[in-house]
């Protein structure tokens, strides 16, 4: 319809111009009459044109209205989260065979994720995780979307290192590397506030700062970090199918730690407070009398470089500092992490689809008055090849190396080597087979020693956003 109208309009214009052109020679014979005639003609044409323009404007307005309705319908379809939060459920199951078990099935976790935009300025998300230990609100946070500085507040994975910010089922291998578990506590979970500033540099450079009650497990200003640590190790223990033992192990460690620091008598005033709080070990975050020194401070500098169209390099350095780790004691803890990720993705697709080599190295320093400084170093590195055998789904092969010291006895280290293969029939369905060989110096537990075989099946129901945090 509109096209036809436009044509008519142009025809009208052409007729008008033609009329003007023809009237010139006529006008040469009888100038005044001809001019009058011409003017009348022009008026007539102008009137017609005005009508046509009005007509067109009306139609245009109509079309715009239709288009804007179309657009709003589309935007609702596109982003159901305006009306409802997007909901996803991830189920992570394993079959494990290790020296200390003769094979067992595990429902490792069921994770319910909800997220939605609150208003133009913020979004919120939560992950509620069910494990054999019960149901826990793993993350619940609000994040600004429109400030020049990204602010996140609530309970969430602090921006420490790389894989500490992944939900375990998002990792490229079956288990959280033991070094990460021992150094950070597996996940860098913390309750607090964090802000990230993006420098206006030609490459990606971001600086994160944050203040938390604690980060991960045991890295924080509360003795009950341990309460939580126990809990989380329960999770971890469950991963290895040996909850009880792990708990005991951890328990022992902390008793030892406690002994180490008990004699110490500085800062009496604060000690009083701390003892009061001790009763509520499980509820670290509810402690009303937290002094600034009880908090954990986080800093992270993170850069990304596109080396070429196919290569990129990501480097980060994180520091978490707790001026006082035990409520009862005056001991400090600093955890430094360095992470490097090098990726390649070829331009011409073929069997070889890409390669990632990455690692994280941690240095943990604990200062206590009686034992002095204990420094533990450990980390992991892995290489991952994406291949395309032109079979259904995505395939990848990898190898993980892990060196995990005990924080309190850094000479006791658990080493492991794990080749694995992953097959994801679709984005929402993934199978992984992993072999792990462990050399456990710690000796008291066989959980990490010898040959272990894992088969993991992870599925996602509902929405599954490819978060920036979990990118490979």
């Amino acid at each position, binding site marked *: 319809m509109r096209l036809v109208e436009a044509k008519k309009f142009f025809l009208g214009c052409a007729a008008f111009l033609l009329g003007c052109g023809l009237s010139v020679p006529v006008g040469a014979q009888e100038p005044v009459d001809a001019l009058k005639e011409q003017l009348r003609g022009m008026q007539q044409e102008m009137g017609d044109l005005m009508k046509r323009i009005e007509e067109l404007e009306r139609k245009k307005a109509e079309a715009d209205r239709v288009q804007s309705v*179309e657009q709003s319908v589309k*935007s609702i379809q596109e982003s159901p989260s305006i009306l409802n939060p997007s909901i996803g459920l991830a189920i992570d199951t394993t079959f494990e065979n290790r020296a200390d078990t003769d094979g067992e099935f595990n429902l490792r976790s069921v994770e319910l994720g909800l997220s939605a935009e609150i208003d133009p300025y913020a979004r919120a998300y939560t992950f509620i995780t069910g494990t054999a230990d019960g149901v826990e609100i793993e993350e619940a946070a609000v994040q600004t979307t429109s400030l020049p500085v990204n602010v996140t507040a609530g309970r969430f994975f602090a921006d420490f290192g790389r894989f500490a910010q992944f939900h375990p089922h998002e990792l490229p291998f079956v288990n959280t590397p033991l070094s990460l578990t021992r150094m950070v506590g597996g996940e860098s979970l913390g309750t607090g506030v964090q802000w990230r500033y*993006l420098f*206006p540099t030609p490459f990606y450079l971001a600086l994160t700062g944050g203040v938390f009650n604690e980060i991960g497990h045991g890295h924080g200003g509360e003795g009950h970090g341990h309460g939580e640590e126990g809990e989380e190790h329960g999770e971890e223990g469950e991963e290895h199918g040996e909850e009880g033992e792990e708990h005991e192990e951890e328990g022992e460690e902390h008793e030892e730690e406690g002994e180490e620091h008990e004699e110490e008598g500085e800062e009496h005033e604060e000690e009083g407070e701390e003892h009061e709080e001790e009763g509520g070990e499980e509820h670290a975050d509810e402690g009303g009398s937290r002094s600034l020194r009880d908090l954990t401070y986080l800093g992270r500098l993170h850069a990304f470089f596109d080396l070429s169209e196919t290569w*990129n390099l990501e480097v980060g350095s994180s520091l978490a500092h707790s001026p006082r780790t035990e409520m009862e004691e005056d001991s400090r803890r600093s955890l430094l992490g360095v992470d490097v990720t090098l990726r390649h993705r070829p331009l011409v697709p073929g069997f070889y689809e890409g390669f990632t080599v990455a690692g994280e190295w941690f240095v943990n320093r604990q200062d206590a008055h009686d034992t002095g400084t204990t420094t533990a170093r450990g980390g992991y590195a892995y290489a991952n090849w994406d291949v*395309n055998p032109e079979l259904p789904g995505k395939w990848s092969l990898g190898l993980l190396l892990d060196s995990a010291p005990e924080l309190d006895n850094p000479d006791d280290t658990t080493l492991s080597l794990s080749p694995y293969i992953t097959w994801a*029939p679709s984005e*929402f369905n993934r199978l992984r087979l992993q072999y792990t060989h462990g050399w456990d110096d710690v000796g008291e537990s066989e959980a990490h020693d010898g040959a272990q075989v894992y088969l993991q099946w992870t599925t996602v129901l509902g929405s599954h*956003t490819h978060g920036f945090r979990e990118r490979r």
Partner: protein
Amino acid sequence: MTSTFTRQWPRAAFTLSLVLLLAGPAAAQKIRVVTTIPDLADITRRIGKERVSVHSLTLGVRDIHSVQVKPSMVSLLNRADAVVLMGLSLEHAFLPALLDVAANPRIARGGIGYIDTSTGVVPLKPPKTLSRKGGDIHPRGNPHYNLDPVLGKLIARNIAEGLSKAHGEHRAFFMKNLQAYTAELDRRIPGWQKAARGLDGVRFVSYHDDMAYFAKRYGMRLFGTLESAAGIGPTPAHIVQLVERMKAARVPLVVYGTYPSRVPQRVARETGAAVVPVPLYVGGRPGVDTYVKLIDYLVTHLSKAVAR
């Protein structure tokens, strides 16, 4: 050595900060547009000319359905005045995650600089059920509409309208350029139609269903895909069956875009069909550096392959 470095260091730091300070205002003079695919970048440049600086997040050789999320993309989006996208969930793999962290309200969904070029596009093959059984990457119908040059005009119009909304002071300029670009496409479309006459009625097999709009425009008929479902790779059983059916129906053409060549080459060999690696986006093949050249390439190469 160390002392030289120590002395040089403050100077280097000073220079760096100076460069950073100057880089801001220099770039600020132009409207900074980030597009998801190079096609949109090319068209945006034709509309915005010297008044825009344009970056594409992806390369034309990449599979749009599995683009990697990179932090460098966040930096681009953080400073962008506008983001131009195809929509219809084509950029599902990377754009939503990036917009979440870009901290830029101008280009957030619904923001003034959020330009979705699918406005007015009626998607082909809308999903019949809301289930992932048929694959999971075209949830809102086929999103590969950039390969229809008539829709190319619509893309250009949507970009011009979008840019004008946020930068009304340049409206006349954008509209003039839109007119010129539309006129150029209008001049070429009949030529392409003529050149593609040989494609009318031709049945073909495609790796992924990414040629749907091109096929519809020039009368080609999709016989099947090498993928067993959208986003799910080719299964051996599916390929065996497809080859049998192709032989029986004498399907003359196999095309593949951003996917590996092994299976399409093999299927073509076994069925005697011609096989053509096609660019799906600007930059998808060497020399295809504009949208016009992209359509040109497809029309010429496919016609040539079918004529043999």
